[in-house]
């Protein structure tokens, strides 16, 4: 099991563009959470998906949206990119049956907005 995988590893975009990041959860996991980690900061919760629905959302604007597929993989979409969106985007998966308490993190996607 490769654990949580994310693609791409790095991405460079310009202001105003749109971006899609992808995440495959750890085998056996059904819940995916997305976090944004700016330089020198801890991860900040964006939202969580379970059963293809957004279950909880953090303090992020509607420009941030997501999707979960029937195979539990997930996408994070960011529209109208701003310079401040430059960050490491982390995906974490967990299992509802396992209590959902332990989240396993992926390696992240480094997004640079120019």
């Amino acid at each position: 099991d490769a654990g949580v995988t994310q693609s791409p590893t790095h991405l460079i975009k310009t202001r105003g563009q749109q971006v899609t990041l992808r995440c495959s959860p750890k085998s056996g996991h059904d819940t995916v959470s997305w976090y944004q980690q700016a330089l020198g900061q801890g991860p900040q919760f964006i939202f969580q998906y379970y059963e293809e629905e957004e279950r909880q959302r953090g303090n992020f604007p509607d420009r941030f949206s997501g999707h979960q597929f029937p195979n539990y993989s997930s996408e994070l979409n960011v529209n109208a990119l701003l310079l401040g969106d430059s960050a490491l985007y982390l995906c974490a998966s967990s299992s509802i049956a396992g209590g959902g308490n332990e989240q396993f993190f992926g390696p992240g996607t480094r997004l640079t907005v120019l």
Partner: protein
Amino acid sequence: AQRVTQPEKLLSVFKGAPVELKCNYSYSGSPELFWYVQYSRQRLQLLLRHISRESIKGFTADLNKGETSFHLKKPFAQEEDSAMYYCALRRIGAGSYQLTFGKGTKLSVIP
């Protein structure tokens, strides 16, 4: 809203010295507390959580509700403990699933 504070950005200790990484939180309800660690060029991983009350790699952490703290301790630091450490909180119940992280403390163990 909940908040997690890690007052030290960087902590340097000598090998064999005791380590204490501080974590304070603010939340009026029942929290679940975690310590996550990120070694160089590796992904963020769970080190321990207060519910399990276990010692991992010699580290322990006790939840002190009176002082709203969850400090991470190890009696004798090893070079391989050098890493970034994040304290995180999850609200118990109320359908809350998000982790709220502190800004992290970089631990550097000097040989």
